[in-house]
C-alpha cells in the first residue's frame, strides 16, 4: 500500500537524511516511500480511513456500513436522498406517480454514461432491477419489494429507451424512499458488464463520479475519477444534486485501530478519519492541522426493556426506570457534549421532528420510587446487556446503572461481544440491553424497526396494536400532515408504554487534515467525497 508520508514537521532535514542514508545502507532505495502526491486534482489521492474492510463490491448485496460508504461513490439509483432526507431524482429527470399510487413512471436523464462508456438506457434499469428482484441476488432490500414487506413490484418495463415503468401490487408512501436507501445500495443502476457471462458478480460498473479501481483485501479499496461523469446541474444535495470528482483517486484505507488512525492523521499519512470517538474529537479540535466536521445523525442509542420479562412486564417498573434517568446528562456525558438528548424514535434531524417529538422523560426520583413501591419491586436484579464495540453503549449502560441505583433499581451489566448481543436481540433473549439502531431515513421505518408482533418477530421491542395501526397508516399515507399526527401519537404512546428508552441520536464526526476542503457531513451518516478538494499545501 502506498501511503505517502508527508514532510516531517518536527525533525530537521538532517535527521531525515540520516534515516534515508541508513536505509540506503541497508540496501533500500529509501525515499520512494516519501513520495508526495502531486498538485490539486490530477494525480492526487485522498486517503480515507475505514475501520474494517468492505465485504463486497456489490451494492446492497453482501454489505455493511463501510461497503455502503465506498460504493455510493460508484453507483447511483433512479432517485436519491436529498440533504434533508427527502427524495429527489438522480438518474431520473422526473418521476410520475399514478393517482392510485400503483404505477411509477421514471423518465431518464439524457446522456448519462456508465463507467465503461455505454449510455444509460431504460433496458439497463430493467436489467438491474430484474437482478435485484431475484432471491439469489441477496439484495438487502428485496423483502421490501417482493411482497413480504412494503409492497410487491409486479413488473419493471421499458416502453422506450428513456422511460421505465414500475407497477406495484399495493400503494406505499415509502416506495421511492426504499429505493433510495443507502443500505440498499441506493438500488444502483448497473451496467450488465458488472456480471460475467455466467451471471457471477465481477465488479460494479455504475454511473457515479468515481469508478472502481482496485481492492487489496485487508488493506485498501481505491476508486478513481470517472472522467465521463454526467453531473446533475443542481448544487450538491445529499446523495443527489451536482457531483464533481475533484480528487483523482479515493483510497479507503483499512485501519481498525483508532489510535493508529489518529497517529496516521496527525502525521499526514491519512487525509480523513471517519467517526473518531467523542474523546478524540475533543482532542482533535485543539489541533491546528486538523479540522473536524461534526454532524447530528439518525443513528439511535436506546435502552430496550423486555416487556415479556417477569420483572419488566410491569409498566410501572419500566416507567420508574425512565424517571430514574437523567437522559440529557447521559447524552451529554457519553458523547462529550457532541449530542443532545432525544427520547423519540423520530431522529432529531428528521423533518418530522416537532415540539411533540421533543417531549421526553424528566428525572423524578421520588416518583420513580413511588412507582416501584406500587409495583412491589424489591430490588430484583435486572440484567442489562451492553458491548464495547460501540463504546457509547457501554458508557450509557454504566451511567444508567448508576442513576437507576439511586432510585433503588438493581441493574447488573452483562458485557457481550456485538455478534452475541445481536443474536440475543434477534431472539428477544434479554431483560434489557443498550442497543444501537442504524439510521433509517423515514419515521415510518424508525417505528417499523422497533414495533411489531413479538410472537413472530421477537426482536421487536414494542408490541402494541395501537402503534401498529398508526404505523401501517403512516406507510401508506402520502399526506405529510397526517403522517406527522400519526408519528406524534405514536411518540406520546411510547412515552406511556416505555418498551424502550431512547437516549439520543449519535453525532458523526469526520476528522480531516486541513488540506481537505469541501467536505460536509449529513444526517444519514454517509460520508461523501465528491466536491471535496485536497489542497497542495495546507
Amino acid at each position: 500500500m502506498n501511503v505517502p508520508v508527508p514532510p516531517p514537521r518536527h525533525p530537521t532535514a538532517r535527521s531525515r537524511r540520516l534515516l534515508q542514508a541508513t536505509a540506503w545502507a541497508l540496501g533500500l532505495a529509501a525515499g520512494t516511500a516519501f513520495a508526495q502526491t502531486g498538485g490539486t486534482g490530477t494525480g492526487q489521492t485522498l486517503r480515507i480511513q475505514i475501520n474494517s474492510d468492505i465485504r463486497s463490491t456489490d451494492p446492497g448485496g453482501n454489505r455493511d456500513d463501510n461497503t455502503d460508504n465506498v460504493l455510493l461513490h460508484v453507483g447511483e439509483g433512479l432517485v436519491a436522498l436529498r440533504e434533508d432526507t427527502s427524495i429527489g431524482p438522480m438518474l431520473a429527470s422526473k418521476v410520475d406517480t399514478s393517482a392510485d399510487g400503483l404505477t411509477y413512471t421514471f423518465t431518464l436523464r439524457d446522456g448519462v454514461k456508465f463507467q465503461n462508456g455505454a449510455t444509460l438506457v431504460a433496458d439497463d434499469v430493467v436489467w438491474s432491477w430484474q437482478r435485484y428482484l431475484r432471491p439469489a441476488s441477496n439484495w438487502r432490500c428485496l423483502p421490501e419489494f417482493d411482497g413480504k414487506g412494503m409492497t410487491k413490484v409486479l413488473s419493471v418495463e421499458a416502453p422506450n429507451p428513456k422511460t421505465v415503468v414500475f407497477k406495484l401490487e399495493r400503494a406505499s408512501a415509502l416506495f421511492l424512499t426504499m429505493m433510495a436507501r443507502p443500505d440498499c445500495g441506493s438500488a444502483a443502476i448497473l451496467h450488465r458488464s458488472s456480471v460475467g457471462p455466467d451471471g457471477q458478480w465481477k465488479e460494479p460498473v455504475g454511473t457515479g463520479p468515481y469508478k472502481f479501481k482496485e481492492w487489496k483485501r485487508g488493506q485498501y479499496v481505491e476508486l478513481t475519477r470517472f472522467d465521463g461523469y454526467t453531473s446533475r446541474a443542481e448544487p450538491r444535495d445529499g446523495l443527489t444534486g451536482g457531483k464533481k470528482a475533484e480528487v483523482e483517486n479515493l483510497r479507503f484505507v483499512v485501519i481498525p485501530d483508532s489510535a493508529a488512525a489518529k497517529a496516521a492523521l496527525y502525521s499526514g499519512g491519512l487525509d480523513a478519519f471517519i467517526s473518531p470517538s467523542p474523546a478524540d474529537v475533543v482532542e482533535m479540535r485543539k489541533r491546528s492541522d486538523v479540522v473536524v466536521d461534526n454532524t447530528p445523525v439518525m443513528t439511535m442509542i436506546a435502552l430496550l426493556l423486555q416487556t415479556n420479562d417477569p420483572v419488566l412486564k410491569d409498566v410501572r417498573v419500566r416507567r420508574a426506570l425512565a424517571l430514574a434517568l437523567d437522559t440529557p446528562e447521559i447524552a451529554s456525558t457519553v458523547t462529550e457534549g457532541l449530542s443532545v438528548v432525544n427520547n423519540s424514535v423520530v431522529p432529531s434531524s428528521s423533518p418530522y421532528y416537532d415540539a411533540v417529538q421533543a417531549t421526553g422523560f424528566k428525572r423524578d426520583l421520588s416518583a420513580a420510587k413511588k412507582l416501584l413501591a406500587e409495583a412491589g419491586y424489591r430490588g430484583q436484579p435486572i440484567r442489562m446487556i451492553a458491548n464495547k464495540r460501540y463504546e457509547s453503549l457501554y458508557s450509557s449502560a454504566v451511567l444508567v446503572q448508576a442513576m437507576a441505583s439511586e432510585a433503588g433499581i438493581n441493574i447488573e451489566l452483562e458485557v457481550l461481544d456485538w455478534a452475541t448481543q445481536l443474536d440475543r436481540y434477534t431472539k428477544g433473549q434479554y431483560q434489557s440491553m443498550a442497543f444501537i439502531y442504524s439510521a433509517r431515513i423515514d419515521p415510518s421505518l424508525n417505528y417499523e424497526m422497533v414495533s411489531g408482533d413479538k410472537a413472530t418477530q421477537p426482536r421487536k421491542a414494542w408490541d402494541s396494536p395501537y402503534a401498529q395501526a398508526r404505523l401501517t397508516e403512516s406507510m401508506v399515507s402520502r399526506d405529510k400532515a397526517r403522517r406527522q399526527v400519526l408519528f406524534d401519537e405514536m411518540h406520546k404512546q411510547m412515552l406511556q408504554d416505555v418498551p424502550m428508552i431512547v437516549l439520543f441520536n449519535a453525532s458523526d464526526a469526520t476528522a480531516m487534515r486541513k488540506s481537505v476542503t469541501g467536505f460536509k457531513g449529513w444526517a444519514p451518516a454517509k460520508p461523501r467525497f465528491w466536491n471535496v478538494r485536497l489542497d497542495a499545501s495546507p
Partner: protein
Amino acid sequence: MPLYLLRRIAMTIPTLLLVSIAVFTLMRLIPGDPVLLMLGEGADPAQLELMRHQMGLDQPLVTQYFVWLRHALAGDLGVSTTNGLAVLPLIWERFHVSAVIVLTAVALASLIAVPAGLIAAWRKDRPTDLAIIGAATLLLSVPSFWLGLLLLMFFGQFLGWLPVVGYVPMSENFSQGVLYVILPIVTLVLVETGVLTRMSRASTIEILRLEYVTHARAKGVPESQVLRRHVLPNAFNPTLTMIGLILGHLLSGIAVLETVFTLPGLGRLMIDSIFARDYPVLQGCLLFTACIYVVINLIVDMCYPLFDPRVSVQ
C-alpha cells in the same frame, strides 16, 4: 531418521483431527449468527433462512463437519462467508505477511538474547548481569501493543520518519516494503528479547553449575572456550524450545500488533473472522495454526541433536 520423521508426522494426524473437531464444535457453540451480522438487525426472517441455506448452515452439525472435513482433506477449506474468497489462498496470503515479520523478529531477538543471557549468567549477580536482567524484565513487562503504539507515535507521528499505516509486500517493492515492517519488527524484537534473555540466562546458569564445566576450568581451559564449547551448546537447547514456542505463538498470535500497524496478517484475519463469525475462515485459520505448531515442534525436535549429541533420534 526418516523413520523417526515419518512416525512423528503420523502422530500429528490424530492431533489435527482432534483439533478440527474441537475447532468446529467450539465455533458453533459461540452465540452469534454470521447471516444476521451480514444482513443487519432489520433483516427479514425469510431472507435470513435463505442465506443460511445457501451457506449450508441449516444442515445438522455433524453433516456440516463431515462436509467441511472432506473438503479440507482435499485441500479445500471453503470460502469466506464475509467476502466469498477461497479460504486457503486467503490464509496463505495473510500468513506471508505474519511470517516475514515474525521470522525476522525472532531471528534478531535470538541473536541478541542468547549472547546476552550467556553474558548475564557468566557475570551472575554483578552489575552487568543486573543491567541485562533489568532491561530484559522491563522489556518483557511492556505490553507489545503499548510499545508498538509508542514507537508508532514517536517514529511515525512525531518524527515522521516511518509510515504510520499501511503495508507493501516486499515482493512488490522491496525498499518500501521494508519501511512498513521496521516498526512492527522492532516492537517484536524488543518484547521477545526480554523473554529469551531470561530463558537463556537461566539455562546457562544451570549448565555453569555442572561438573564438566568445573572440570574444564580446572584443566585450565580458557573461559571463552569453556563458554563457547561447553556451555553454549548445552544451554541452547532449552532456549531453542522457547524459540519454537514463541515462533508458533507469534505466527498465529500477533493480531494486536497487526491491528496497531495495520498489517494484513494472519492474526488480524483471525480476529476479523471471529467478529464476523466467518466460520470457514476461522476454522481454516485454527487448523492452519495447529499445523504450524506441529511443524515447528518437529523442526525443533530435529534440531536438538545438532546442539546436544546426547539427544538421540532413536
